């Protein structure tokens, strides 16, 4: 459990950019996001920070980039202690960050995107163009400064993001789960770029939970679990199994399902469902599957392969081709509200975007999505007292940590917001639950509780469509697993026998991953 940290070698010669993090503590209401965090990043290395979703990696990264201030602890860059009150300070100290979700303007060129906000460095004319071209050539990015970003693929966009931080003079580059959005070939290309950067003296902090990649690229590995750094590993000697054990810890509850509760009663059936996006590109292709009462169907896939569209099509937020039946009834002409009233519960992947009214009290959030039925309303009027009473129940049963049901949803930590949503969507006896990443960003205890609630509902005949990036969660909860790749279902697995490696291979389109 103790952090086996060795003193950092900040006296090394040519490469600069060593970062030492000591005893960082960061609390959010209800959750300690980071405590006892200690990392020593040697200059000129690729340092991997690994941990499960919700282990506190993002918080640490935001602290390093000046987005959030730690409650305690110190950060030193090249031996000098620094305090960042904004990302501007971090950039000045030579720290740059590439976010998982790109922050690029599609209708601008590569050059314009890079220069935007850094006009003082090299102007916006030929000097800037020369500098962009120089960086692009130096590290083998192969970017045309005058190409519109909207024409670039995901891998190229990521290189634009990296170029942006290099242009601003970053010596230390933080990459937040850079491979989550990439296909295997792009991952290889990214790693080549990273090796180039390392060779030229840059320091890279690489955040991931994919062990293969980490072992492939990293010089040092730090493992985080439940908000703290729990150990370090040498990628030359460590095995995936050891890393996984460090990441997961022994006390992690596993989402083992008990005996099958699958019945013969088909509740949700999709037949040849297809969806095209605004530009006419197919995002879902010929999806056919069914879920029976008491069955959990897991969908595995790299994010962005059509999971969101699949969920939103079933919820009626997207209109597609093909046929969807709920309990035998064709739902093509039903809108979202009809589908919800028919008993579909929906845990969205992005709780802030689709799940909550952040500036409304918890009890009003209880009503959201259920505003046509008791206890939320009697059809015409909102029944505040009933809704409040039921919110109290959810707060109790789902252990939502909040001072009051009149607190605004914004004030709660992500995990507690998620528990509220799960509690809400399990209310009113749903027949089908669509759960997108139901335990993302919640602490381990809450995760176990959410799993228990899903398992209990499944025993009572609930049909569940489970989408998750956590393969252990998928394997542990599902009765069947389908793999989605580029909008199509490409493989069906039995969770009893499948391994995460087999799933990972199918998710990336074959054995080459």
């Amino acid at each position, binding site marked *: 459990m103790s952090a086996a940290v060795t003193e950092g070698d900040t006296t090394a010669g040519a490469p600069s950019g060593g970062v030492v993090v000591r005893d960082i503590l960061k*609390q959010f*209401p*209800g*959750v*300690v996001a980071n*405590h006892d965090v200690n990392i020593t990043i040697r200059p000129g290395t690729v340092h991997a920070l690994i941990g499960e979703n919700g282990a506190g990696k993002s918080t640490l990264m935001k602290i390093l980039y000046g987005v959030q201030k730690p409650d305690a602890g110190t950060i030193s860059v090249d031996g000098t202690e620094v305090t960042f009150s904004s990302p501007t300070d971090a950039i000045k100290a030579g720290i740059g960050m590439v976010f998982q979700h790109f922050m690029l303007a599609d209708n601008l060129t590569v050059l314009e995107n890079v220069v935007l906000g850094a006009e003082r460095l090299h102007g916006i004319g030929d000097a800037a163009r020369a500098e962009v071209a120089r960086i692009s050539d130096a590290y083998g990015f192969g970017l045309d400064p005058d190409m519109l970003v909207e024409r670039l693929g995901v891998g190229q966009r990521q290189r634009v993001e990296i170029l942006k931080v290099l242009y601003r003079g970053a010596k230390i580059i933080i990459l937040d789960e850079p491979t989550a959005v990439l296909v295997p070939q792009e991952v290889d290309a990214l790693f080549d770029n990273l090796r180039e950067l390392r060779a030229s003296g840059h320091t890279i902090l690489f955040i991931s939970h994919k062990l293969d990649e980490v072992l492939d690229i990293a010089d040092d590995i730090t493992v985080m679990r439940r908000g703290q750094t729990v150990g370090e590993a040498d990628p030359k000697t460590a095995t995936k199994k050891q890393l996984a054990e460090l990441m997961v810890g022994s006390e992690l509850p596993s989402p083992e399902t008990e005996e099958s509760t699958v019945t013969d009663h088909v509740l949700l059936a999709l037949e040849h469902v297809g969806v095209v996006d605004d530009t006419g590109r197919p995002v879902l292709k010929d999806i056919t599957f069914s879920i029976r009462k008491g069955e959990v169907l897991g969908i595995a896939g790299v994010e962005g392969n059509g999971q969101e569209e699949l969920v939103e099509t079933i*919820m009626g*937020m997207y209109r597609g081709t093909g046929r969807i039946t709920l309990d035998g009834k064709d739902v093509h002409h039903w*809108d*979202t*509200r*009809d*589908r*919800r*009233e028919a008993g579909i519960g*929906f845990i*969205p992947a992005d709780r802030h*975007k*689709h*799940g*909550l*009214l*952040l*500036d*409304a009290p918890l009890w*009003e959030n209880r*009503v*959201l*999505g*259920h*505003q*046509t039925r008791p206890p939320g*309303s009697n*059809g*015409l*009027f*909102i029944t*505040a007292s009933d809704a409040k009473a039921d919110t109290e129940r959810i707060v109790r049963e789902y252990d939502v*940590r*909040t*001072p*009051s049901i*009149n*607190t*605004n949803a*914004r*004030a*709660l930590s992500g995990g507690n917001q998620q528990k509220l949503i799960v509690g809400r969507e399990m209310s009113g006896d749903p027949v089908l639950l669509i759960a997108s990443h139901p335990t993302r960003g919640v602490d381990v205890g809450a995760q176990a509780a959410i799993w228990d609630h899903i398992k209990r509902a499944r025993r009572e005949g609930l049909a569940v469509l489970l989408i998750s990036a956590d393969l252990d969660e998928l394997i542990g909860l599902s009765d069947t697993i389908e793999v989605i790749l580029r909008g199509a279902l490409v493989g069906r697995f039995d969770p009893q026998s499948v391994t995460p490696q087999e799933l990972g291979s199918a998710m990336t389109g074959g054995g080459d991953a």
Partner: protein
Amino acid sequence: MSSSKILRTLAQAILAPLIALIVSVIVTSIVVSIAGASIGDFWDVIFTVPTHRNWVNITNQSSMLFLAALAAAIGFRMNLFNIGVEGQYTLAAFAAAAFAGAGWLPGKLNIVGALLVAMAVGAIWAGIAGVLKVTRGVSEVISTIMLNAIAGTMIGYLLNNYGNQYGQGRRTTPIPGSSQLSGWTPWSAGDGPIWTLTILAVLAGVTMSIVINRTRFGFDLRATGMNEDAAVASGVKVKRMVVISMLISGAIAGLVWMPALFGAADYYGPPFQRALGFTGIAVALLGRNRPLGIFFGAVLFAWLSEQANPLSLVADISPSVVQVTQGVVVLAVVIAYEVVRRWMAAYEQRELKQALGTEVRA
């Protein structure tokens, strides 16, 4: 916990407007002194105790400002910027005056008919913008501004072709005597009456307050305003909501000038009061789109305009300087609310941390 919640709500309700008022008093004083007038004289005039006559005027004016602001606020609550209250109430006022003037219905029934016409015309005029938005993706800001211009031109055309010559201008046929409302005269006849239809402001305010805060429709409307994506995921048909809200907003806008029409004007013509729709937008901002806030905002604006009248005589400064005050109040309120909201959010976070602090390290 609940007492602190009440305290917080109170602080938020009082603190922000108070800060805003103080800021606008300071800014106005600076403007007045730059204009070369005496600051003391200026505030003396503004804060003179209103005469009976002033009180009547303030009440009448407030009712119309309140309706205009309420119309704008309904759109604002779901992020719809209905800038077209101006055109909606002008066109509705014209249509209602023409309808009532024709005298197709007897007595008081004529008034009811005219009110319905006003609401329908306002609703249709706003509804055009709503339909354009959901079917063609036209921003309601642009379309309502254009509809304002079209309304003005259209009224001019109709008055020229179908109106009566009256003095220098043209007007609609005056309303028959049996359909006029005398109002309530609390003091002497010389102080004038409080118009009967100021009651419309009270009725509309109470109704909208219930609809927005207590009904499912109001919940859908507020949810759409707070987070459209979440509202869609919860089953709200946002396009339908856009059209319905624009219709309601327009219908209320249609009522704006009705107190004056039946209480004093008797026809649509030259003394018609313009710009109530634009002022209403400012009052809605001032009142944070809440009926009670809008009420205070409307009274404040009406007070300032009414009290400013003798400024040129007493303080040797143009009464329009109060428009500076009105503008600054709105700006200051918007900023002050945001500042206070942030304080409160930080306070809530701290409170939450305290309340839960003991168990987190478990």
